[in-house]
Structure formats: C-alpha cells, structure tokens
C-alpha cells in the first residue's frame, strides 16, 4: 500500500522537558519522525518546549514552536497552522495526554485534524485499565487479579478481596508516577491517595502482587495492512516490583524456551490488534511466574516509549522512523531495512550478541530520599552496552555508568554472606554489586535466588564472573589464556589491575604486548545472515573485526554517556551538531557513546557509530581501531561535558590528538592557581578564594575571606557537592563529606557573593576572534546553581557598558587560557564589579538554548573552529552571522527565558514524605524549557506554563518569607493585590504587608492538623486547591545539606497539590511580570522560523 495522499501537513508533539521517566528518547524518536515526514514532502509543524532537543532545530521541521505543551498553547498552534493530521505517539505520555485533551475539548474536530498512529479509541482502550483488562481476557490472556478504584473507600473495599501486598497504579501517568506497593492499610492510604491525585481521571488500579515474577517486554510494530512484527524482547534482571526503567534489563530474553516466547508473541499481537493501534509501535509488558510459567499481561503503551528507543538501539530496527512511515500508510514490506539495504522492514530482528541496559540514579543529589527501588521510576538516565555474551555486556554497561561504585567489585573484602543475602532482599541502586559480594562471601545461587528472585541463570553468570576473577587473582602469572578469558567476560583493565595489584596502564601494556585487543562487530539486525552496510559497531573480545578501511580523514567525537543531573541532553545536542557540521565539511565522523536514549547513538547521525563505554580503555581501543582503518584528524572532547573532558589529558598522554582547546589549556582553566594567574594578568576580579587540602587550611581560608563561603570539590559538573556554609562547624562537617566525594582533588573555598546578579556567557574563540554566542542573565540570585536557575537572553537588565565589559573579559580569558572552540564563563555582577566565577573551556549546558534563542548554530561552528576554520571564514560561509554577535542583537530581538524543571515529585523519604524543593548551589534539575516572546514577562509566563503549569491570573496567593527577603517583596506582592489577588500570609509577613498598605489574611504558622476552631490549616487549604500561587522563601541556614525545615511542609503541599511555588524574591518579581503579561493580552505563539525571518 503506498502512502496516503490525503495528508499534506502533520503536527508532531514532542515530550517537553527532560524529567524522570521521559528523557531524550523522545527527542530521538521525534527527530526520526520529523525527518521521515519531511522526506515524504509533508509540511511538518512541531511543538516542543525543550530547547535542548535536536528536533527543535529549525531545519528539522517546517514550523518549530518552542511553546508550552499544554492543550491551550497547542490549540493556538493548530488554529494558526491548520495541520491535516496530528502524530502524538512519538512524544511520550505528554504528547499522548495532550492529544487526548485536544480531542476532549473538541479542538481536533473543530479544526478537522485527524489523529494518525493511534486513534483516541485505541489510546483509551490501551491506557484505561478496565477496558484493557477486558481486552486481555477477550484474547484469551490473563491479567493480574485487580480492581479499579475511584476513591479511597473503593480501595479499602477492594483490598479485602485481593489481600496485601497490593500494587497501586494510577491511570494516565508516565513513568509509573504515583504507583507503589502497599503492604498494609497505612501504605495503601498514602500511595493510593497520591495516585488518585496524580491521575488525571482520578483512577487507580489495585492488583494482586506478582512481586518477584520474571518480567518481560515486547516491542511490537503494526502497519495498516495488519502486518505485525516483534522488534525485540527485553528481559528484566530485577524481577517484578522494580520499574522497568530502574531495572537492569537484557535483550534478547535469556531464560524463555521457544514455546513460552511464542505464546507471549501471540498474545502481544492479539493485544495490539484488539486495542486497535492501526499503525505504529507499542510496548507490551508481561510477567511470568517462575514456578509454573503462568503468564500475565501487565500493560501496554500504545506509543513509542523509552523501551522502544532501547529496542531500536539494541536491534538496529529504528522503531520511531518505521512508526512514522506506517502512520503515513506504508506497509512494512514496502519499507527497506536501512542496515542491510536489501531486505524489508517486515521481519523480526535477530541478535547474535547480548545487550544490557543499566539505570543511572542520582540519589546522591537527594540524600533524604528513600533509595528502595519500586514500581515508581527514580533513575535519571541509563547506559547500554553490547557484548558477545551477557557477562561482557553487563560489565561494559556497569562501567558505562561512570560511577566509582558502578563496576562490579571483585577485590574488596565482601563481608558476611548471611548479612549480604539479607541486604539484597531489598532492591536498590547497586544491588548487583552486593549480590556479587554475597557470592564471593560464599552465598549460593539458590540462597540468592530465594532472596532476590533474580533468575538463577543470571546469578550463575555473576558466579562465573567471580570464578574468572578468582582465577585472575590466583594465577602466578597473567597468561594469555587467562587474560583472554577475563577480557572475554568483560573485565576492564582497571578491574584486572585491582585483582593483580598493579595499575591499569601495566595491564594495558601486557595486553597490547600479547596482542589481546578487542574486535569490533556490527549490529546488523539479522545475525550476519545478510551483509550490513551501516557501520554500527560494538567491541568484543572475539576473533574477527568488521571495521572497514576508509579514505577520508576521521574525527572521533566522544559523547556524554548516561544522562545524569548536570550532564544530559544538552551535551548530546552539541555532539550531534558536531557530527553534522564535520560530515558536511568533508570529514568522516565517528561517534562514541553509550546512552541508548540519544540522537547521537542513532546510526544515522554519524558516519560510524561505536556503542561503547566512555572510559579511557574503551576509547583508546576505538581510536586505535579507527587509526588502522584510515587517517584520524583527532578526537573531540569538549562537547560531551565532563565525561570526555576528564579523558583529555590521558588520551593526549597516550598520543591521541585532541582537536580544539588543548588538554594543557583545559587543565589551566580547571586549576585554581594557574587560572587565577590568567585573571590577574588580564586584570579581572574574582571572588576571594583559596584551595584547601585539609580542614585546617579550609578554616584559615574561610576566616580570611569571611563567611558565608561557597565550598566545592574541584573538577565537578552540576555543582556536585557544592554548598554555601556559614560557620566553622558546618565547614568541618562539609569537608568530612566532600573529600569522600572526590578523593583525588582538593576543595575550593570561594567568597559567596550575596545579592549578586549571575551571568552566564557562551562564546567561541578561534585564537584570534571572539564570537560571543549568548549572554544570559540569571533570574535567581547567585548561590543557586546555574543549571537550576531560570535565565533570560538577551539579558533584561544589563546595559551596553556591562555587555562591553563582559565581551572584553571573555576575550581576555579565552586568549589567556588558549581556547580553540567553546568557552563558558560565569560572572557575578555585585555592585558595579564584574567578578569572574569560573570558566569552562567546553560546551556548556546552555549551548542549545543559546542556539535556539539566537538562531545561530553555535556547536556546529565550534566543531569547525576546533578543526582549524576561523570565525571569519565561518561568517563568510554563512554558518555564523556576517557581522556582530550576541552583544549587539537587534533591538527587536525576542526574549527567550530558560526555566529548569525539578524532579522533586519523584522522590519520597523513607517515611513516604516528599523531599524538599529548595534550590541551592548543587544542581538538581533534570531538564529545561524555553519560553520565547517579544517581552520578558510573556516569555517568562510561557516558561512557567511549560515547566510547571500556567501562572494564575487571579485567585489566592499565600506568602511566607524569610526576614531578609521581606523588603524585596513588598512591591511585587502589592502589585498582586492591586491585580485583585487575595493575599494570605503568615503573621510576620502579614504585618510587614499591612504597614505597607497591603491587606493580608493571617494564617497560622503551625500548619499541621486543624485550627482550634476546626477550620483547615494552610496546608489543608493548599491541598484542597484553595490557593493558586505560593511564595515561600526559606529562612535559616544551610547545614550540611539537610533541608531548611521551615516551610518544608508548605513546599511539600505545593508539590502534592501541583501548585506553582516560588522560592526566591527574584522569581517572584519575574512571576508578577508574567502574570501582568498574561492579563494584559492574549498570548500568541510563533515559530522559530518566523522569529528568524523578522
């Protein structure tokens, strides 16, 4: 069947900011879809509020709306663009929910927009638990016994029947938000209560516990001729009870016979047909009772998911791309398999390797959070690895996590076997390490199976690893046979070095001398049945390599590894841009990365892809393989964040050419002493600071500088371990913890500039000319991590003189450090002094935001500059503007506001309470959105709508402020009162307001329970939805990272109630401007292409 001819334009909805449960996999899928649709000659209209995505690059769609993904804003886009069709199955749950809302509001019907991919009916059937259960029964499948509940009474009645423990799952939430396991009534009231709140349909499902069963997923694809194929099977190592996003997973399934697998396959196909997903991809989850094989269907997602991104990378079958094609009417047999070029897409990939995915958590950022893994997803990213056996893939995946405690430990004293067996009953990040420890301590596979319900086959594989490790440790000399056996099971040089009591360099030397090197195999979808033409490689210690020789000079780009807080999609964005720009410039681009969610690991992005861990060993081997294949110009380390940057020096020492800023220059910028000299030479002021290697030193420095001081370990990203301390006691406490966090590097102590305006600059330097890419003014004060702070571009309050000083200072730093490529500088403007806080000679998190806001592809230009092209010639080429830069933006440039999105609602303390939501110097946001419009107020309002939900334009505001903030908030709160808002305030705040002519209703400061007269407290009122906006700035001081408790209850209620909560005075001022903008006019939408034409 050829493609439909009745569709000329398609609206694609993205997934918005990166949050837990919805990350860059939807940029990968959305980008693929947009490319397919455009290649088919359709007009593509895109809505996505996330500027850090490739899909929002202006050349991916015809009209790109970086606008909030809310029904209101998407309706405006539809009214303006009048698309024929809407494709909502590639933008995660956000897009799907928005499509359903647009349908419910009659918008799709009113504008004649056809939903393609999955119909509303199919979405309802797949997502509504009751109807889905019915469908499963109809096709002869089984579901867990369950009950649908719409109230707490329903829940209590149902559990009489089902018995504890029960699983609670709210309908229509993503990443399992609001779900959990209830072991008793108290649990049930808490979890189901939150679940009913979280579900847009106030609906939760209670079901029998299938905790500990084997868990599987199938990725299914269907076309409109009803051809169905299974793309991939995935088996979770962590059994039922742990969200699949938090599980270590394996593809293909390892412990099913063909009979069981085929029953699962039949049911999956029957389900997609019965649900009626006409075209596209689905994900179906199963549980298998390990004792008797009873098979239960857990759920289906009638859309592309995180697992489908994983399945695409694991098999080479591009699910989103094919989903877009079948949505247009093609049948699978009409679509070629890109990898073989000859066979069609109507087949099922078969693997001759093993893929392991491991989750990356960020519990260190939320010390108060409970680290137990549940059905509620908590990981912030993932790494994938491919090996020729499970052991190799697992070990590669774990070292890809880049955590000091990521890889398995075969050396430390394991501890007591019985204690360990008890410990691993609870699932948590790092459990596999402890399972290995238990095996080393003498626990049996059977004991561990009983404790963990991890399949004995996997446990035996771990046992095999301990046996290999024991042999490595025991042999008198490392023979080629033993070394080869260890490498074949994925042991890194570092692990072997630990076992042999030597260094990784020595092991590498021995290994190379013996000629024991990895070979590179190809992901080809067909287990070598057909020749592959796509060079998508992975390493293995096997016999034959498949890397082909090449003529053109190659540039190797090191990606950024698994998403984590502080290093995510923004860095992938820059890497992808480098690949595009350098391919265009005639280089052969080679990408090395291990994050399955990203665009960079799409086999289409670079000329060659190596799906490999980003460790020195793995990267050196890739470089070596590519050097044997042809000339290599060098390796790019400055675009992927701290991960590749951290390898720069060692790579250079190993003789690998680093293009762009040299490792020596990188080191210069990172080293406090030498960087201080650069600043001194240029006459640039920096806050007083010192470098301490002991507490005594730190105390002396702090005494000299004066408290408060900002302390942090050196060489970190995302403000890891950064705190503001106010006295010696908290300093001592901090040093104790921080030196553990980063043992090899000293602690930096800086003067903390209270009340300064923080400024972020991204610039490009070619050795001669500086191109100032963007100057961003932070909305929150200094002390809030730049990644968590909202910012505006162009800066809203800086004048020409200040911008001039910023340019001169940035150029002096670039020259002094010796930058070739990108440079990010953070300044603080305090009084009239422009302090240099820090400079990073690499791509920053803000590069994509700057590129979107100014329409200049900064990362592309940077890649070219790194390889020797001058800024002047890039201006001639048209890649950069012919004249000027961000300092002299035209007066009518739009204002772009970036806002950070926080994951607080994902974490609970062990007693079930929400973790605190305060911002601080340690970054905790997972993603960002952009609002863009004529004026700051409107742009800010859009950014808030995109990040948290629309700011209220009327209603009730609750204000509770720290003393030091009261002066700053009188004017904005008065303005809110003038706009007609009802003001509630705590007594102190209310008194200040009253003296300044603002009437406020006084509420008690003790929040819990009821007022003496029986009326609800402020917490009750917030939860009841009587409050529309909360303004709460914290009082007290930071002590040892524990949250400032005052106001915690309020902020917690705000999270639970989903009510906007402003925690800084600057944020309040911006919000008032936003509210005024919303009230003054109807806010419009405008595409990036249209802004650029202006």
């Amino acid at each position, binding site marked *: 069947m050829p493609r439909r001819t009745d569709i000329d334009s398609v609206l694609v909805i993205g997934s918005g900011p990166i949050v837990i449960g919805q990350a860059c996999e939807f940029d990968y899928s959305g980008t693929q879809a947009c490319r397919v649709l455009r290649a088919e000659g359709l007009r593509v209209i895109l809505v996505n509020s996330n500027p850090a995505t490739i899909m929002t690059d202006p050349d991916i769609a015809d009209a790109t709306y970086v606008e909030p993904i809310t029904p209101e804003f998407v309706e405006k886009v539809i009214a303006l663009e009048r698309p024929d069709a809407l494709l909502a199955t590639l933008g995660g749950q956000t897009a799907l929910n928005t499509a359903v809302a647009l349908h419910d509001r009659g918008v799709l019907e009113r504008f004649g927009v056809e939903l393609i991919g999955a119909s509303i009916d199919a979405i309802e059937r797949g997502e509504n638990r009751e109807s889905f259960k019915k469908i499963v029964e109809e096709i002869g499948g089984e579901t867990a016994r369950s009950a649908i509940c719409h109230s707490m009474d329903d829940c209590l009645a149902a559990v009489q029947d089902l018995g504890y423990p029960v699983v609670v799952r709210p309908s229509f939430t993503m990443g399992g938000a609001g779900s959990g396991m209830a072991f008793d009534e108290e649990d049930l009231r808490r979890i189901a209560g939150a679940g009913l709140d979280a579900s847009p349909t106030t609906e939760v499902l209670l079901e029998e516990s299938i905790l500990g069963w084997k868990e599987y997923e199938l990725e299914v694809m269907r076309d409109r*001729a*009803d*051809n169905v*194929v*299974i793309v991939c099977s995935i088996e979770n190592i962590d059994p039922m009870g742990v969200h699949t996003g938090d599980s270590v997973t394996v593809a*293909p*399934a*390892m*412990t*099913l*016979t*063909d*009979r069981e*697998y*085929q029953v699962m*396959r*039949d049911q999956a196909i029957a389900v997609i047909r019965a649900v009626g997903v006409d075209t596209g991809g689905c994900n179906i989850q199963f549980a298998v009772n*390990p*004792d*008797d*094989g009873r098979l239960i269907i857990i759920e289906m997602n009638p859309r592309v998911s995180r697992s489908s991104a994983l399945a695409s990378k694991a098999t080479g079958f591009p699910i989103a791309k094919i989903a877009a094609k079948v949505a247009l009417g093609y*049948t*699978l*047999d009409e679509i070629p398999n890109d990898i073989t070029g*000859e*066979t*069609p897409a*109507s*087949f*099922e*990939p*078969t*693997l*001759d*390797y*093993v893929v392991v995915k491991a989750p990356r958590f960020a519990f260190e950022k939320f010390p108060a959070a409970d680290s137990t893994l549940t059905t509620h997803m908590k990981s912030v990213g993932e790494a994938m690895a491919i090996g*020729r*056996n*499970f052991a190799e893939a697992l070990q590669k995946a774990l070292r890809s996590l880049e955590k000091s405690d990521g890889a398995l430990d075969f050396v430390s004293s394991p501890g007591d076997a019985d204690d360990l067996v008890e410990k691993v009953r609870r699932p948590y990040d790092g459990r596999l390490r402890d399972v290995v420890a238990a095996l080393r301590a003498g626990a049996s*596979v059977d004991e561990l199976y009983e404790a963990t319900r991890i*399949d*004995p*086959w996997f446990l*035996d594989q771990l046992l*095999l690893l301990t*046996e*290999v490790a*024991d*042999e490595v440790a025991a042999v008198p000399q490392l023979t080629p046979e033993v070394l080869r056996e260890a490498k074949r099971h994925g042991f890194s040089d570092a692990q072997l070095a630990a076992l042999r009591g030597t260094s990784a360099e020595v092991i590498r030397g021995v290994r190379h001398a013996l000629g024991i090197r990895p070979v590179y*195999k190809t992901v080809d979808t*067909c*287990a*070598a*049945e*057909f*020749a592959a033409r796509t060079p998508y490689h992975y390493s293995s210690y*096997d*016999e*034959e390599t498949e890397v082909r020789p090449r003529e053109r000079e190659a540039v190797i780009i090191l990606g950024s590894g698994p998403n984590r807080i502080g290093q995510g999609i923004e860095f992938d964005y820059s890497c992808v841009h480098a690949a595009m720009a350098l391919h265009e410039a005639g280089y052969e681009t080679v990408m090395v990365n291990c994050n399955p969610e990203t665009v960079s690991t799409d086999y289409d992005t670079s000329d060659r892809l190596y799906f490999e861990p980003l460790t020195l060993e793995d990267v050196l081997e890739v470089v070596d393989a590519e050097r044997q294949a042809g000339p290599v110009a060098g390796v790019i380390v400055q675009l992927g964040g701290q991960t590749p940057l951290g390898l720069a020096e060692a790579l250079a020492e190993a003789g690998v050419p680093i293009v762009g800023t040299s490792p020596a220059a990188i080191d210069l910028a990172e080293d406090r002493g030498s960087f201080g000299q650069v600043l001194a030479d240029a006459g640039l002021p920096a806050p007083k600071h010192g470098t301490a290697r002991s507490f005594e030193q730190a105390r002396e420095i702090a005494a000299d500088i004066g408290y408060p001081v900002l302390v942090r370990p050196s060489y970190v990203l995302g403000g890891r371990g950064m705190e503001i301390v106010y006295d010696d006691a908290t300093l001592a406490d901090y040093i104790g913890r921080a030196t553990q966090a980063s043992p090899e590097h000293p602690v930096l102590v800086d003067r903390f500039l209270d009340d300064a305006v923080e400024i972020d600059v991204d610039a490009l330097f070619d050795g001669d000319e500086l191109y100032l890419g963007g100057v961003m003014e932070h909305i929150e004060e200094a002390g809030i991590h730049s990644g968590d702070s909202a910012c505006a571009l162009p800066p809203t309050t800086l004048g020409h003189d200040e911008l001039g000083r910023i340019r001169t200072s940035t150029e002096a730093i670039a020259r002094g450090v010796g930058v070739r490529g990108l440079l990010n500088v953070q300044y603080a403007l305090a009084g009239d002094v422009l302090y240099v806080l820090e400079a990073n000679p690499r791509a920053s998190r803000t590069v994509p935001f700057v590129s979107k806001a100014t329409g200049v592809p900064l990362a592309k230009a940077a890649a070219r500059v790194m390889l020797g092209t001058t800024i002047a010639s890039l201006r001639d080429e048209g890649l950069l503007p012919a004249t000027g830069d961000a300092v002299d933006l035209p007066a009518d440039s739009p204002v772009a506001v970036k806002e950070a999105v926080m994951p607080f609602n994902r974490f609970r303390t062990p007693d079930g309470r929400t973790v605190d939501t305060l911002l601080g110097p340690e970054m905790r946001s997972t993603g960002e959105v952009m609002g863009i419009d004529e004026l700051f107020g409107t742009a800010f309002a859009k950014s808030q709508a995109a990040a948290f939900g629309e700011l209220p334009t009327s209603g009730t505001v609750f204000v509770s402020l720290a003393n030091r903030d009261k002066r700053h908030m009188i004017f904005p709160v008065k303005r809110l009162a003038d706009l007609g808002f009802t003001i509630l305030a705590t007594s102190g705040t209310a008194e200040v307001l009253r003296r300044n002519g603002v009437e406020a209703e006084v509420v008690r400061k003790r929040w819990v329970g009821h007022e003496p007269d029986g009326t609800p407290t402020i917490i009750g009122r917030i939860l009841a939805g009587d409050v529309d906006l909360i303004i709460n700035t914290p009082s007290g001081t930071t002590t040892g990272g524990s949250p400032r408790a005052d106001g915690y209850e309020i902020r917690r209620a705000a999270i639970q109630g989903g009510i906007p909560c402003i925690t800084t005075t600057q944020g309040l001022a911006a919000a008032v401007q936003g509210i005024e903008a919303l009230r003054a006019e109807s806010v419009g939408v405008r595409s990036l292409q249209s802004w650029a034409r202006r």
Partner: protein
Amino acid sequence: MTTRPPALLVLEDGRAFRGRSYGAAGETFGEAVFATGMTGYQETLTDPSYHRQVVVQTAPHIGNTGVNDDDPESGRIWVAGYVVRDPARRPSSWRSRRGLDEELTAQGVVGISDIDTRALTRHLRERGAMRVGISTVETDAEALRRKVLDSPEMLGADLAAEVSTPSPYVVPAEGERRFTVVALDLGIKTMTPRRMAERGIEVHVLPATATVDDVLGLRPDGLFLSNGPGDPATADGPVGVVQAALERALPFFGICFGNQVFGRALGFGTYKLGYGHRGINQPVQDRSTGKVEVTAHNHGFAVEAPLDRATDTPYGTAEVSHVCLNDDVVEGLALRDRTGRLSGFSVQYHPEAAAGPHDAAYLFDRFADVMSAAKES
C-alpha cells in the same frame, strides 16, 4: 572454574577455529549451516531436516533453559555436530529436566563452543554452506581438513530414508475425526501431525519408502508430505507418489522438503541455495493477499518456478503462492484444478512452527478446507 578440553573446527576451504569441546568428545563431519533463531535450540537439534548437518547457532547463549521432555521434535537429536559460543552452565526453567551439555553427551553429539560464531557465519554467508569437521582428538587443522574433504557432500544426498519412521503409525484426531490424511515421513517433526490432529485430522504416518498403493490403500482424504533432509533431486520415489495422488485429485499439502517434491511433481526444478534459510524471523508474503507472515525456515534447497506467471501442468494450473521478501526465493506453490479450485498447495517454510512464530498456522486450516471442498464435490 572448570574448563572443558580443547576442540578444533575446520571447514573444507581450510578455515579453522579453535574452541572447547561441547557435548560428546570425538570427531564429526557434516554440512556447516547457520541457524539464526534466538529461541528453540531443542527443537532445532531434534529436527530431522538437520540430519548430516553441523549447526552453527548465531545466538551466543545456548542451553539457558536446559532440556525438557516436551519440546523435542523427534525421538533424538539429529544434527551431526553443534557449534555455539557460550553454553549455559546452569539451566534455568521450571520445565528443565537436565542440562543441554549432558543431553548432547548422552546422545553422542560432538560439539564445539567458545569460538567466534559470527566470524564463522559470515564466512558461510560469503562462501556458501560447505563441509566441516569438528574434533576433540585431532589437533592438526590440515589433517582434519583432509578428513572433511573425504566426507560426503549434501548435494545429491538421499537422506529421507535414513530419518524416516521404520513402520507406519497413527496420530489420532483430537475430538471428532473429520478427515484422514496420509503423511509421508521424509523427516517429519512431532508438531506437524499434532497441528493436524488439533483440527480433527487423523494422521497416518508412513515411511518415506511407501508406495502409491500404500497411500491409496488407506483411502485418505488428503496426502501430506513433510520436511526432511537431503537433496530433493534424489526424491524420485515421493515425487511419483505425489504425481499419482494428483492424478486422482487427492488434496495435497506439503511442507519444506514436501514443497520441493510437490514442485518437482508439477515439473519444476530445484536448486541448492548459497547458504540457505535457517531462522524463525523470515518475512514471507502471501501473494494472493499481500499479507506478510513471519515464519520459521530451515531449507538449503529451493524450487525454481516463475514468479511472474502461472504454469500449466497435467494436474491443473500451478503458481507461486508465497515468496520470501528477503531474497524472492519461492516459498509456496498452489495448484488449482480446471474449475479454479485449490486442489493442492505447499510451503517451503514451517507453519507447524516448532520453533518459530505461529503466523502461518492458518495453512493447516486451509488444508482442511481443501479436503472439505473435495469431499463435497
């Protein structure tokens, strides 16, 4: 750690791989073929079509679910040798009775593990299926190669009689008996008569050497020809049986080798594929509906028939009904009588699907329909 003794694999063109012994110790020879299924090793090992073949599993982990007594497709392991990368040490399945290593050893099957199976597979893909030897006794590659070159080739091999049942047996219909079918066992798999029995068909399984009279004497409603090993060009006996049945308008259904015999009976030739189709992920299109089935394949030979036109035969009009979308190989034949009614059909792939997807199970219904229609007229 227990390490198994070394083993050597040598192809007839001299390429050698050194690994470890898996299964029985000793020496074995056969035609090297690769199978790409990720599940179903037990069904593969016991499939008589693999008689005299050394199977290379492209999936690296084999033996994970052990061996059970339900899944074998015949009474024994047929493969001549077995090549895997990473054998399971400890099987895990609630149905498992013993380990695969143990089973291979018990049945005297010589295998090799810990070799680069992908390199071997790529070699076979580029150079074609060829003879191979595996040995745990010979350590000299050249010496083993000489023995390989002395071993028989697959082209021209008549093997059906070697795998066929020595005496007839009956698989009774489940529930009410609707039809009686004679199945010629050229290497039949357990699941095939079971799929027919599920549809009310009583299956009389006869040895490959059965004559036309043996068949007709049972007064069947239809004739079935199974899969099996060897070169279809040697199967003159079964071809004669099929032709005689077609002359009497007896409804016919053939699978795999049965498809090739049917092709020959209709006057088409057969040929050896470069490296064959052996997997459970193969896209086959039903040319009458355009629908694609994901199917299980195990064939090294194929029928040579025109894709672009029907062919007149003494028994009616024959056409290619199914084709493999990967390489346009003929995957099915349909024969229509003078009135245009379907009277016989066959497929090159495995609708009984053991191992493999169940997409093509409808073909057994189609066989029942053809017999039903023939009965009515």
